[in-house]
């Protein structure tokens, strides 16, 4: 029996060792590896999947020439939207796979956790999704770059639009967590500065299924517009219920981010909602038209906000690596600072002081267009980068 015992243990041991000792190749001139610890399962999977879709298209586009003549390899890891898993996965990508660039992180909480480790790992973190203002303010360090529009920048764009609208009274409804509360606070501050009134605010918990009491409260407040910072599914549920109650006709819905995902899920009940968009696929630039076409060919759908923003980030990163002539992280950082890039929706500038990409901001409206199978974002106003980007390393605007 001792032998069987031994066999069992040795089999278990061998299995354990082989799991630990996966191959590790560190060729100097191998592919340029980009690690994506993205939320591919769980409640926030739609954001990770968008990042992956963009990476798939980018791989296809760059396949022929590569970066510096070297092929590009993406390594995906599923974090399920959990910061602890995100750090573990990122550490695996850095230490085992030898990636020098991390991107595709979906949630701000994950980004804050992973970004804090990057100076220790000497790895570049490129945000293309994360909105938290702190990333380029309080928590900023030189290994962090944000290509996307941040949360405060989105709030700024829609506030600029509302400042010129005839609406005077607003209600703020934000999900009860960091993003929802920060956005509502930022909106309140900017709307008050524009001499308009916030007549009420409330913070439903994440995952609220019944918004009836909030809808009643909004109606009672006699607001003309309701500012909504609700994540993915919560926004979908709210919009459907507000439509059933007839609230959307009385009180204009103003979304912190107006996502295609919501428009597809809610359908016609979403028409008329306005909001900011970090990347509306309807932007009328030749480069974007090309991109939308290629994206549609590959995935059979129109690109959502983070499809576009992630693609831009990857293309810009490739451009910067080519400019630096190496994938050495320190040299890439130097090459990226103060560099410019022609994005899908206009010119981008990477500010040296806080590594926030200065870019145009958009106010959009959800409209129906017979050419598309679902409602689409129509651009109401475009604001140049210097109007919507906060002062360096702050979340405030001049």
């Amino acid at each position: 029996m001792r032998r069987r015992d031994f066999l069992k243990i040795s089999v278990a041991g061998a299995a354990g060792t082989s799991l630990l000792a996966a191959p590790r190749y560190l060729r100097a001139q191998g592919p340029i590896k980009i690690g994506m610890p993205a939320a591919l399962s769980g409640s926030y999977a739609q954001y990770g999947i968008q990042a992956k879709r963009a990476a798939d298209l980018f791989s296809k586009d760059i396949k022929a020439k590569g970066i510096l003549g070297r092929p590009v390899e993406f390594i995906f890891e599923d974090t399920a939207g959990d910061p602890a898993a995100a750090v573990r996965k990122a550490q695996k990508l850095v230490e085992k796979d030898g990636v020098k660039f991390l991107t595709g992180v979906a949630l701000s909480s994950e980004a804050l956790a992973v970004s804090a480790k990057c100076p220790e790992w000497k790895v570049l973190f490129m945000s293309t999704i994360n909105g938290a203002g702190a990333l380029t303010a309080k928590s900023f360090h030189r290994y962090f770059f944000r290509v996307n529009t941040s949360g405060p920048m989105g709030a700024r764009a829609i506030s600029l639009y509302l400042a010129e609208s005839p609406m005077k009274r607003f209600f703020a409804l934000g999900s009860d967590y960091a993003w929802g509360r920060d956005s509502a606070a930022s909106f309140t501050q900017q709307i008050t500065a524009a001499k308009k009134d916030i007549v009420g605010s409330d913070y439903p918990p994440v995952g609220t299924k019944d918004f009836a009491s909030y809808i009643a409260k909004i109606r009672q407040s006699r607001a003309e517009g309701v500012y909504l910072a609700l994540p993915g599914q919560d926004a979908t549920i709210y919009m459907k219920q507000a439509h059933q109650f007839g609230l959307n006709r009385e009180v204009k819905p103003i979304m912190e981010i107006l996502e295609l995902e919501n428009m597809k899920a809610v359908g016609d009940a979403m028409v008329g909602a306005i909001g900011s968009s970090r990347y509306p696929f309807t932007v009328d630039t030749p480069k974007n038209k090309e991109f939308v076409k290629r994206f549609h060919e590959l995935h059979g759908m129109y690109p959502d906000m983070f499809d576009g923003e992630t693609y831009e980030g990857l293309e810009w990163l490739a451009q910067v690596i080519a400019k630096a002539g190496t994938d050495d992280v320190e040299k890439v950082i130097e090459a990226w600072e103060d560099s410019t890039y022609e994005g899908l929706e206009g010119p981008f500038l990477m500010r040296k002081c806080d590594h926030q990409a200065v870019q145009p901001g958009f106010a959009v409206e959800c409209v129906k267009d017979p050419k598309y199978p679902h409602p689409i974002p129509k651009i109401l106003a475009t604001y140049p980068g210097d109007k919507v980007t906060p002062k360096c390393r702050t979340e405030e605007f001049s």
Partner: protein
Amino acid sequence: MIPSRLWALAALVALAVVPWVLARHQLSLLTDLLIAGLFAMSLDLIMGYTGMVSFGHAAYFGLGAYASALVLLHFAQPVPVALLAGALLAGAVAVPVGWFSTRATGIYFAMLTLAFAQFLYTVAYKWRDLTGGSDGIAGVPKTALFWGGPSLTSPHAFYFVVATCVVVSLFVCLAVVRSPFGRALQAIRENERRFTSLGRDPRPFKLVVFVIAAAFAGLAGALFAPFRGFASPEVMFWVFSGQGLMMVIMGGIGTLVGPILGAMLFILIQEVLSSYTEHWMIFTGVVFVLIVIFLPGGLVGTARRLGARA
């Protein structure tokens, strides 16, 4: 059958030698496994030896993580101070929670621990000024071993801190369960009524072991925060408590060593499979079901049974 002392010696030697042969990533993974192992072991103390199934053990891991993160970030104290703070806070909070929860038994005990854990989770989630809310606390540094002592930033140094904590905790827990106090706990597990009819009140025993288990979970959390560099409400969520139960059952209830191995297996499955598929949780579930059906007693329980039959 190889005597267990020989096993223990072999394991100790392996723990000491292994870091010098592993690649950096494997060493990080091993550190992670040991921390999860310590957490699962602490749960086994109440679950396996006293028969109290807690659905809220992650709360104490989380309390330890937050205490350690705050001490390291704001006071820049050496790591052992943070570890002590984590264990003490978790133990201290477990006193009132345990006092209430041990009034009930079985499923009611489980529900009470779950309720308190979710309450603590909500506090961590909402108290934004202290805990950073849903963003958590990031950038927790690995400080020195003692005042003016060597820094623990190298992966090897921190690994040895973790390994030492796990080994010492294991021996302390073994001593606890082999002491008269530990025997009393097992008597409660086997038959609480008979224990009462022998003239002893089981509640003080249950309360004390609950607090000890919480303190060790807090220690695991306190190691986790500087290792990962952050603490967030997710580490207190009931899902993590549930995973703790799975680790204990997979490794072997009431064996202390088993849950450490169970935790290692659990994390390894997750680590390896989630690189290939988003549906890794299905496989974790399948492995769990297979172990429960075909290996009752978990990995260690089954190994012991086979050993005894030889």
